[in-house]
């Protein structure tokens, strides 16, 4: 007598890749705009990036229905925070809130692989990377999604400090200029698009700094 198995899954993977890089006074968050299901493309023009607060931007790959639900819950919680505190949530605060929200559904998780980017209290760039149930860490750069296995080693090569034992201890933040970081991100996606079938179509980049947020787009291969 074999164990009874479900004949359907509540989850689907819509593919896609997200990347974020933190700088000394900026943060770059990028994601492709392809939404797929299996071997099919559902749309070439779906944004995985959502601005949660004036200094926090969330990019999520995975199951986009869960991603959308997660974004709505965070938006509602943020509104409540603003009513109570008379101000917007800071990025580190939002990072903790996201973690708690994800763990709340520990036993029926949001199938969302998140990267949160923004500026911290000092105006420095910050990037937080998550797993599906809320485990998170502040890092200098991160990649999540179907192309992350291709992008992460490349970013490690370009950005990672030689050794954690290095003295003096290096900051989590990357010593790259804003335009260099943007170019790096474009390179990452161009490469990932070549080999990952779920990544492509168009790249959406959000650049956050003291003067605000701006968007850039870049075409990617559509095959």
């Amino acid at each position, binding site marked *: 007598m074999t164990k009874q198995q479900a004949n359907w899954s509540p989850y689907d993977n819509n593919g896609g890749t997200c990347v974020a890089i933190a700088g000394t006074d900026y943060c770059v968050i990028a994601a492709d705009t392809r939404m797929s299901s299996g071997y099919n493309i559902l749309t070439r023009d779906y944004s995985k990036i959502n601005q949660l607060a004036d200094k926090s931007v969330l990019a999520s790959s995975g199951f986009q229905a869960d991603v959308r639900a997660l974004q709505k819950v965070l938006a509602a919680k943020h509104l409540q925070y603003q009513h109570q*505190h008379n101000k917007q949530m800071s990025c580190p605060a939002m990072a903790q809130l996201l973690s708690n929200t994800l763990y709340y559904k520990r036993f029926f998780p949001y199938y969302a692989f998140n990267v949160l980017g923004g500026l911290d209290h000092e105006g420095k760039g910050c990037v937080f990377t998550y797993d599906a149930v809320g485990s998170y860490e502040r890092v200098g750069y991160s990649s999540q999604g179907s192309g992350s296995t291709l992008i992460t080693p490349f970013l490690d090569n370009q950005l990672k400090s030689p050794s954690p034992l290095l003295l003096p201890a290096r900051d989590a933040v990357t010593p790259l200029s804003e335009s260099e970081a943007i170019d790096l991100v474009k390179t990452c996606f161009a490469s990932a698009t070549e080999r990952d079938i779920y990544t492509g179509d168009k790249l959406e980049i959000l650049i956050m700094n003291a003067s605000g947020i701006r968007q850039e787009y870049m075409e990617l291969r559509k095959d």
Partner: protein
Amino acid sequence: MFRNQYDTDVTTWSPAGRLFQVEYAMEAVKQGSAAIGLRSKSHVVLACVNKSNSELSSHQKKIFKVDDHIGVAISGLTADGRVLSRYMRNECINYFYSYESQLPVGRLVVQLADKAQVCTQRSWKRPYGVGLLVGGLDESGAHLYYNCPSGNYFEYQAFAIGSRSQAAKTYLERKFETFMESSRENLIKDALFALRETLQGEKLTSSTCTIAVVGVGEAFRILDQETVQALINEFEIAGEDAPADEAAAPDPAADSESGATAADQVTPSDPDVTPMDM
């Protein structure tokens, strides 16, 4: 108020068919400091008198932002008002979560009224001791409602509640027919004039009053002290006549302040109001 035999709890009727506890709750509203609301086709202005226990303390917060399109001014037991504001905020947030659109003002006030009614029909509860002037915008235009402790609600062109509100109501009754077509600036000035009536001779300054505006293209916002003082100076210097013309000067000041922050939230008009003063 005289003592009655039938006023011990809210679930006892008097022989004349009255619920005295509910009427006593409405009395609490009349004892609170004045709050005024007026509306035009496109804007709603809420104004209230700042009352503080002593010179040493900060004043109570009587105007609350409920959502970008709704705000409320209260009079009476401010603690009850704070709790109801929190309820209203949650209702707006939940509605937006479900429908991705703004909760219509008329729907919110009905929910509020039904909530108040419950407290008039449970022996273990008491009515809310606060009157709410709910001002907001929705697809059908600008609205001003008054919610009583009794669970009744009414829509108004302009209204005033709290102590010495009759003086303000008299002023509003004279001028209300002009409000629908009024400009935003004139609406605010009429609110200030009406507020001044309730002060009965006391000087109207930006520290003794709070003004909030919501309108088409303008999210609900409490005006900061400088803007309010500039408006007061304008009409006091101009004399007792109600101003007939626009005032461009205070507006850019208000707009540039709101443009500075990405999402301009409630700005407390008093610098020493502690953040926990909800």
